[in-house]
Each structure stands twice: as C-alpha cells, then as structure tokens.
C-alpha cells in the first residue's frame, strides 16, 4: 500500500509525459473521405477524323481534348470505337503518329498552315498506303488553320524523306 501510491503516481506522470510527447508533431490518420468527387467540366471542340468505309473516306466526329489541337491526327491510329465499327468504319493508319506545326517564316501563307506528321519511332521505312495518306491529309486539313501536311514515310519519297500532301490530291476517295 505504501509502495503503490508513488508507483501509481509515477505511472500517471509517465502516461502524461507520453501523451504530451506523442501529441506533438503531425500524426498519421486513417483513410478519410473528403466529400463528393469532382465532376468533369473541361469543354473542348469536337474533332473530325476521317475513317475508311469500303475504300472511301468518311468523316466522323469525336470529342476533343483541351490543349491538344492535333489530337485528330493522333486519333487516326486508334482503333475505331464500337459504334464506328458498327457503321463499317475502319482505319488504314496502324502506326502511332506525331503531329506538330512547322514554323516556316518564308511561307507566304503563314507559319501555322503546315502540319508535320511523323510516325512515332524514328527511322521506319514502311510506307503509308494511299488511303492512309488520304486519311492523314484530310484529317489534318479539317483542323482549323492547317492547309498542307508534311508527311514522312510516303511511297514516292524524295531525298528529304517526306512529301507535302493535301486532301485535294485524294478527292477521288472523298465523298
């Protein structure tokens, strides 16, 4: 009985000290909910993508992405969506594409009128089919401000390895 009181007091003091020390600093928590998830709000203009049906080009619209003006060209390499496939649409472009504008100060038509399109992965020598070239050219020209496509990997390659194509060259496929 005589021993218990100081021992209890000591235990109490130790507990208080522990609580004081443990209470300091940033303590971990469990998983806490923080309310409703955010709703998607980004709006972007739709893009026009030229797909192929029975050897002819067919324009379809897809939603765009903010901050990606040349997404339409990149989308050519993506397999058509379910509804598109149901309509008999497919794509002849089977390689990932990179698209970017070439700034040509000397061009009288302005710096942004030309879109460079390259297959992803540098030195591939596989050529585009005519249909694929038509898809690329027409899709690119559907982007506002783009009038020509500087395309690498064309069959009649000149020494630069690229060719300038426009949708007009494939007017027989359009419509």
């Amino acid at each position, binding site marked *: 009985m005589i021993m218990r009181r100081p021992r209890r007091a000591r235990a109490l003091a130790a507990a208080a000290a522990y609580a*004081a020390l443990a*209470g*300091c*600093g*940033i*303590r*971990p*928590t*469990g*998983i*806490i*909910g*923080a*309310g*409703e*998830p*955010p*709703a*998607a*709000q*980004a*709006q*972007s203009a739709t*893009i026009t993508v030229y797909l192929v049906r029975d050897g002819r080009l067919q324009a379809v619209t*897809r*939603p*765009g*992405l*903010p*901050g*990606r003006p040349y*997404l339409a060209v990149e*989308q050519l390499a*993506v*397999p058509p*969506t*379910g*509804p598109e496939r149901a309509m008999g649409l497919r794509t002849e472009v089977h390689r990932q594409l990179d698209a970017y504008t070439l700034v040509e100060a000397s061009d009288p038509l302005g710096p942004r009128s030309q879109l460079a399109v390259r297959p992803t992965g540098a030195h591939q020598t596989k050529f585009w089919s005519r249909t694929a070239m038509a898809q690329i050219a027409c899709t690119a020209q559907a982007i506002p401000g783009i009038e020509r496509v500087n395309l690498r990997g064309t069959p009649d390659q000149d020494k630069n390895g690229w060719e300038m194509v426009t949708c007009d060259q494939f007017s027989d496929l359009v419509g």
Partner: protein
Amino acid sequence: MTGWPRFTGLRVRLAAAFTAVALLASVLASGISYVLMRRVMLQRAQDAVLTDVRNTLARQVPVEMPPDTEPLVGAALEKALGSAQGRKAVAVPVPLRRGESALPPPGALDAPVTREFARRAVYGGEVVFQRINAHGRPYLLVGARITGYRTTQNEPWRTTPPLVFVSASLGREAADLRLLTRALLIADAAALVVALGLALLATRGVLRPVRRLGTAARALGDGRLEARVHVRGRDELADLARTFNRTAEALERTVTELSAMEAASRRFVADVSHELRTPLTSMIAMTDLLAEEAGPAEGGTAARLVADETRRLGLLVEHLIEISRFDAGAAALVLDDVNVADAVNASLEARRWQDDVEVEGPADLFVRLDPRRFDVIVANLAGNALKHGGPPVSLAFGPPEPEGAGGVRVVVADRGPGLADDVIDVVFDRFVKAEAARSRSEGSGLGLSIARENALLHGGTLTAANGPEGGAVFTLWLPDGEEE
C-alpha cells in the same frame, strides 16, 4: 533556524503550490493552443491540396473523352498536379477489367498507397485522403476519381478518365509546428520563472507577518513580556496578531501582578523575620537561663524543652532571613583565598561535629570562594547527613574530576537509608522533609535550599544522589572565584 526547515517551510510549500498552479495553467493553455493551431494548420494544408486536386481534375478532364486517350489525360494530370513543390502525382487507369489493379507503381509517390486506400479511391464514391509518415516525414496522400463523364457501354475502358493519386509533403507544416513547440516551451519556461518570482514575492508578503509573530512569540517565551506585534491590514493574520497582542498584554499584566504579590509576600516574610529576630534573641537567652536555673528537676524538663524549641525558632528565623536575602537578590559574594581543609575543619569544630564526620582531602588545596557561605554549605550538608542519614558520615573534598577544572569538589555521604526516588528531585526545595512522619524534626527545612542557593551564587552546583552502597550522597562543586 538551520537550512533544513526552510525547505519544508510554509513559504516553500506555498511558492511550490503557486508555481505548480501557474505552470499547469500555462502548460494547459499552450497545449490547447498547440492542438488548435495544429488542427487549423493541417486543415488548411489538406484543404489546399484537396481543392487543387478537385479543381485540376475538373478543369483537365473533359466530359467525354476521345478513345484511348487515357494516357494523354493522365500525363496532363500528372504534370498539372505534380508540379507544385513537395508534391508528386500519378494517374492510374480505373480498373474496369478483371485482374487490373488500381495501385500506382511503387516509388511513383513519396508515400506508399495501400490496397485499401486504392480500393476506397476507386469504389468509395468520394475523394479520400490520409496522413502518412513515410521515412520519418509526414505526407498527405490523396486519391480522387472524377465523375460526370460520359463513356461507352461496350468499351468503357477506352474512354474512362484515370484515377489520380497525389502525395503532398507536410514538411513545411511539421517545421512550423516544431517552431511553435519551441516557442511554446520558451513561453512556458518564462511563465515558470515569472510565476516562481511572483510566488516568492507573494509568499514573502504573506509570511512576513507570520515571521514577525514568531519572533514576538519567541521573545515572549524568553521572558520579554513587553514583546508586541505591529498590526497591519484587516486580514486573518492581522486578527491573529491582535489576538497575540491581547494575550501578551494579559500575560504581562498577570505576571506583573503575580511578581508584585510574590515580592510583597517575600518582603512580608523578611519583615516578619526581622521583627521576630530581636525578641527571639532575648527569648533564647531567657529560656536558656530558665533551663539552667531549673536544673535537672521536675520543672527543668519543660524549661529545657522551651529553650530548645525557642532556639529552633531562632534558627528558622535566621534561615528565613537568609533565604529572603537570596530571593531579594541582595546576597553578594565576598571572595577570599581559602584553605579548604582548614575551612572544613573550622566549620565542623564550631558545631562540635569533628568526631562524627570523617574528613578526607588534601591539606594544601586553596580555592578562592566566600568563606562564610562555604561554611554554611558545609554545615548544612554535614548537619543534614548527621540528622537524617545514618553514620558513618564522610566528607571528602578535593580538586574536581576533570584535571585543571579549578575550584573544589566536596562529597558528603552517609550510610543511612538514602533518599527516596520521589524525594531526590525535590530535596533542595524549601520545607521538603524526607520523612513525612517526622514532621516535627529539628531542621528548619531550609538548610539544603540555602546550601544550594549559596552554591549557585558561586556559580557552582549541588546535586543529590544515592550512593552505590546505600545512603545519600551530596556532591558540591564550587568554581575557583574570579580574580577581581
């Protein structure tokens, strides 16, 4: 007043209690403010991260996604969310097909994402967060999935926006909290010091009257009856001081009255004794003459009895006069260099006791003392032994036990029955008689009192005890008188 009582004293206890209360209050206040500050700080940091995550998701994710653009959206989200300092973000496809996991690749974030956290982030229907300590550093982990998007029925995985996990370092908040802790500790220490100082000041103010009261009480105890306390204020201590003063006044009055009465009665005894002395002297002479004239005849016995009693009365009066001189403080020492052996012998011879007392001691011991008072002491001790103790009576004198102590030590012993235990302590009191039955003894009952008063007047001692072989032993010690 040594150091020990000061540490358990009232002042220390009061100051300790005061300080403890102040410290408790200060610690409590700082603890509460710490907890509140931390809550606010963390809440703000968490809200900032969560708001950022929500806003970025809402801004970056389109309502309808083009097919297979989940990595693009994810990369944009990672870039937007992970650009802030201390933050890392990773976008993970929502697991829609069997066997897919929503766990981000390990190491992509600063804090590990648990399976349960990922599960709640995907299926919980809300933004989730968790504070985690990873590698000893605190992080906030947020998991969020967006709603309100449109996807296709048969290929939802192609157009479902990704899930994002964000880890945000709470290092700045931790540093701020450490700063706050240090500031609070310093503040508490300062509060402790100030509280201690204030406590000491306050207790000094409270305890000063107590100390004054104590001093006055000690003075009163030492006999300075005029000691009073200065009363100030209207609190309990002032009340106590007033009570003390009243008590001291009453005590002083009573003691003064008592001593006046005692002085009066002593003076009365002295006066009566003086008045009785002269007629008694002539009465002694007369009764002696009458007893002589009557001779051994029939009437002679009565006459002798009267003469004896008258002489005893004279002795009593002499003793009373002697005692009243001591009481009046009128007794003075007349010191002289005395040969102790001569003085003892002269004293015994004058009373014709030289044959009844065995004297033992050096013949050449000289001590400076009052010869008349020494004679009185020796006579009273020897007379007491002869009258009340049994023979043989011995008187031994010599230098005192510790060598060079000076003075003389005289031991008078008899072989009588000795002193009863209850008598030893009071044997020197006035009119104490060892044998109650023998109330009409020859002694005055003042002899030993006078002997002791004389010893004390010399600055010596006179003690009574029983010898190892029975009989009373009276030990006198007289110091060597100071040379004037």
